[in-house]
């Protein structure tokens, strides 16, 4: 959508492409940012949830008499106060804000107390008497499928299955039969959680004229807005959601949660503002982290390395509720079909309910797990074929304009360059297969979506809109419903606006995440923000630029295309001595045209996917590509692995701000490494979380973290704003299989189950007689 005002030649940028610190960072690192929990209102009450101690239990009765009698307690609510099912996906709404009939996991909320302070609320919650009838529970996904298994959701038509998807593209059996080599593996990806620094927090404020405002640390203010209105039975136009800056989310906050409904309901009941802040333990119960997946992958190739087919079968452990599970089920299959060309592909993915905290989207939603399985299988295949694993990949890279086997249209791809860059930077040729026992390198590649082509609830409205107001002071204000959570989304809007209007970043205010102030954006998930809000912003900014340039051109009696807005000035391109400050230009335009503002919007192209059922899920306006090489050492006596270095190359299209793209790449590589080596979100057979704390859920410290090298591969995507694509999730995928493959190169054992912990490695080494 480039209608660049530059008259001739390739576009040159003044702001885009520059390394620019995140405009929110200074406040964040100096403690000035006001997160949701930093907000307080006169008369505010504090709420606390009572949670089920049973993995599966019928709620026989709830008696809150003692709690209500405690001084300082204002209200107690239970499932009966909000008997409306919600869920982020309209087809699978299976959750009540507070359990109505049954509690489905240890930690499922059943009641909520509002009191004058948190300590009283905590004590009052403990004084609520709940009588449960304990039911048999399930913690293993296979058990959920057995005949006669206890059923979690009685009204579900498919037993304990949330979603099951079978799709075949091409003639898989023929392709596999015609292969010269086939590699396979049974893989297990343990559950992982996000570990965002800021716990979930929400505040409800009810105004007597009938407007409910909820402040929440959410990534999806818009979906929350819809669900609050539906569940609390308030007109859609009487709910306001404000998202203060979010202290990290990674997918953990991308759907509504019990706390937001509870603060809303309690505020309406008590007439007081009500705050609820989760403890760290409760964040582990809210979860929505990466699904555990059991995967069987087979990949075949011809002797020359041409990939013939891939056969994938995946069992997904969903936890107690559907969450985004329908999408997860599709993603687990749909998102392994690039960057490499497959001759045929079959996917068979099933997500089941278990009595555990619900899984959902974590950075690289649904596709990090199969990517691990696929890339490790490729490594095995390369060995069978006697091919270098990079070379095997190179021989199969998709081309620009090609469609994947499942019909996603690839409009830009820099994967070949990604492979070249990591190969050269890591010294791969001198290292792979050549390092001493105990040290090795491994490679992997991946791709990811720049937003989902279709919104979560069916509608034909824009996926994102941005409004820009230009002021006679010279200031420009950008209103957007996007979700700033540390990733730099506000900075992205400011940079695009600055590029188009020529104003300094300091003169731009970005007001995001307030459903009253800002036009709708669907939220901060699926790496959609730069693509969608970025394009909407560009659309708005260009309208303003056109109007302002026309007014200035009229004054200078030149063509509008000869007026440049840059560096704080409007300048005549052919006679640069003619210039005026932008403030002056804005005043001139305001006098001529009236108050200045513009609305921009973006919707996705509808011709980029297949028209089979499910063909839209996983389709995106553009795809990013990544290659990683990891170098690891393994202690042969203890099995302890150490990831020494990760080289990452990423095609994010045109990196709007290389500093932030590199930050995303480093954060992603770190997060992947963390899952590979240390993290695991384990629910015990009795349904208890193994250790819901940051001491027991071990996220690596800076001392554990490898050296990270990030390399940007630039492509110009025709759809992205200025050619930009995503960078927030893609660069995570390949780090895990690269590490797995490096461990194999180091010590000759395959660890096909995450995490690659020293006990597993030592056991494998012993089995092989190497330790």
């Amino acid at each position, binding site marked *: 959508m480039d209608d660049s005002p530059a008259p001739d030649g390739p576009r040159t940028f003044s702001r885009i492409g520059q390394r620019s610190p995140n405009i929110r960072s200074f406040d964040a690192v100096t403690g000035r940012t006001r997160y949701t929990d930093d907000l307080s209102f006169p008369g505010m009450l504090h709420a606390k949830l009572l949670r089920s101690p049973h993995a599966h239990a019928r709620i026989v009765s709830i008696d809150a008499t003692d709690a209500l009698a405690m001084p300082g307690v204002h209200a107690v609510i239970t499932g009966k106060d909000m008997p409306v099912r919600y869920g982020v996906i309209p087809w699978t709404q299976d959750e009540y804000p507070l359990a109505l009939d049954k509690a489905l996991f240890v930690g499922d909320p059943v009641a909520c107390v509002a009191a004058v302070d948190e300590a009283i609320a905590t004590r009052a919650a403990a004084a609520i008497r709940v009588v449960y009838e304990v039911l048999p529970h399930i913690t293993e996904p296979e058990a959920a499928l057995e005949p006669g298994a206890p059923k979690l959701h009685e009204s579900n038509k498919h037993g304990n299955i949330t979603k099951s998807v079978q799709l075949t593209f091409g003639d898989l059996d023929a392709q596999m039969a015609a292969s010269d080599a086939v590699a396979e593996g049974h893989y297990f990806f343990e559950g992982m959680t996000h570990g965002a620094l800021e716990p979930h927090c929400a505040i409800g404020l009810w105004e007597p004229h009938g407007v409910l405002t909820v402040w929440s640390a959410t990534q999806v203010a818009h979906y929350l807005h819809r669900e609050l209105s539906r569940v609390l039975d308030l007109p859609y136009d009487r709910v306001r959601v404000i998202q203060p800056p979010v202290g990290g989310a990674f997918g953990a906050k991308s759907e509504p949660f019990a706390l937001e409904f509870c603060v809303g309901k309690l505020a309406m009941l008590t007439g007081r503002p009500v705050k609820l802040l989760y403890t760290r333990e409760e964040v582990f119960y809210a979860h929505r982290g990466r699904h555990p997946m059991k995967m069987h992958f087979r990949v075949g190739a011809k002797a020359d390395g041409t990939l013939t087919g891939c056969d994938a079968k995946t069992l997904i452990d969903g936890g107690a509720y559907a969450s985004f599970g329908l999408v997860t089920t599709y993603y687990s299959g749909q998102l392994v079909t690039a960057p490499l060309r497959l001759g045929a592909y079959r996917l068979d993915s099933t997500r089941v309910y278990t009595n555990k905290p619900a899984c959902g989207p974590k950075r690289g939603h649904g596709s990090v797990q199969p990517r691990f399985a696929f890339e490790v299988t490729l490594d095995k295949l390369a060995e069978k074929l006697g091919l270098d694993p990079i070379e095997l990949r190179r021989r199969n890279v998709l081309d620009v304009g090609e469609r994947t086997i499942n019909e996603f249209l690839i409009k830009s791809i820099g994967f070949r360059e990604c492979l070249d860059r990591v190969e050269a930077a890591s010294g791969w040729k001198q290292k792979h297969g050549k390092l001493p026992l105990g040290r090795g390198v491994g490679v992997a590649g991946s791709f990811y979506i720049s937003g989902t082509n279709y919104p979560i609830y069916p509608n034909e409205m824009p996926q994102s809109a941005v409004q820009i107001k230009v002021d006679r002071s010279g200031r420009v204000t950008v209103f957007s419903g996007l979700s700033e959570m540390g990733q730099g989304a506000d900075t992205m809007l400011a940079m695009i606006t600055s590029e188009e209007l020529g104003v300094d970043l300091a003169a731009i205010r970005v007001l995001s995440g307030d459903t009253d102030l800002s036009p709708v954006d669907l939220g901060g998930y699926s790496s959609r923000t730069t693509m969608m809000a970025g394009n909407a912003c560009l659309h708005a900014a260009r309208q303003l630029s056109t109007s302002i340039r026309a007014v200035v051109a009229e004054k200078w009696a030149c063509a509008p295309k000869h007026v440049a807005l840059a560096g704080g000035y409007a300048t005549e391109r052919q006679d640069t001595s003619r210039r005026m400050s932008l403030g002056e230009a804005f005043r001139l335009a305001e006098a001529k045209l009236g108050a200045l503002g513009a609305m921009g919007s973006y919707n996705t192209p509808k011709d980029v996917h297949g028209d089979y059922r499910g063909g839209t899920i996983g389709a995106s306006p553009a795809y990013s590509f990544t290659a990683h090489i990891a170098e690891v050492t393994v202690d042969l006596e203890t099995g302890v692995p150490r990831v020494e270095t990760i080289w990452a190359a990423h095609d994010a299209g045109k990196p709007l701000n290389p500093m932030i793209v590199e930050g995303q790449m480093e954060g992603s590589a770190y997060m992947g490494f963390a899952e590979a080596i240390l993290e695991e979100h384990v629910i015990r057979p009795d*349904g208890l*979380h193994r250790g819901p704390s940051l001491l027991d859920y071990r996220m690596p*410290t800076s001392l554990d973290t490898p050296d990270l090298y990030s390399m940007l591969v630039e492509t110009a995507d025709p759809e992205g704003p200025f050619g930009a694509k995503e960078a927030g999730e893609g660069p995570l995928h390949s780090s895990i299989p690269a590490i797995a493959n490096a461990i194999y190169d180091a010590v000759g054992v395959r660890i096909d189950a995450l995490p690659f912990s020293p006990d597993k490695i030592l056991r494998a080494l012993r089995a092989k007689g190497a330790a």
Partner: protein
Amino acid sequence: MLPLPDFEWLAPTTLADLVRALGEHPTDTLLLAGGTDLLPNLKHGLHAPKRVIGLRRVRELSLIEESADGGLTLGSGVTLDTLANDARILARYPALARAASLVASPQLRRMGTLGGNLCLDTRCAYINQTAFWRGALGGCLKRDGDVCHVVPQGKRCVAAFSADTPAPLITYDATVELVSVRGARTLPVAKLFGGDGVKNHVREADEVLTRVTLPAPARGLRSAYEKLRARQAIDFPLLSIAAALTVGDDEVVTDIRLVVGALGALPRVVRKLEAHVGKPVSPELFDELARAAHTQCHPLSSLGAEAWRQDVVAPMVKRTLAALRASTRE
């Protein structure tokens, strides 16, 4: 946030006032030094004291004194950060400095004290959890229940001994002083621990640990400390190993101490090492000591990964021995 229980807070400034306040109703009073262990445990509802007495204002407790023969007396309030960086400790008792340097994280070492580390509660996957979690489990022998989930038929709590500094202190023959309204007594560090997590120290409720005395290092003393942990910071030990060998000028070993922590409730002093006294320092000797430790040390499931931890006792002991450093006078 997890709230703290309500209690009365006292912060005396002299040892005499402290001991008196503690003596008033000792069984429902707790002492708080750095608070890095006690506060999480209070928030988890493991204790419900009526009174908590802060120790940080008692200056006498944070002194380091030198004895004439070259030993040191360390106040119980000396921080782990000081232990890790004091030149005298680094020179004379390098394994103690190293153990302190490996505790938790810089912030926690600046708050955490030697006394708190010696009196650290033992740890277990079934007890170091919130009250909600433990309630869902149904409690255990140590609190609110009657079975041990680690040793189901067991009669005592075998939660893991998890402090870093006691093992090296044992190898150095350190002693502790306990003071109460009833008087003072001195015990070897090795005798401070009770072996049952329900009451894992022999300290009586009215006693305060005032100081730790380290005898002058023997001539030829070489010592080391190594710790197995999941991450390079924060984590409690999965195994901790302190070694001290006394070596003559002829490189012949005249005394061997090997102490392994993070197994059961007690630090294990590896026994029957006398047979190795008289041998020269050599890789073979280290192998033999590692084998002895391997057969005597049995990690429990209280900290998880017990089979792997058992497997790595020997390599960890060898590494500790390979890192032995001679004590010097700074």
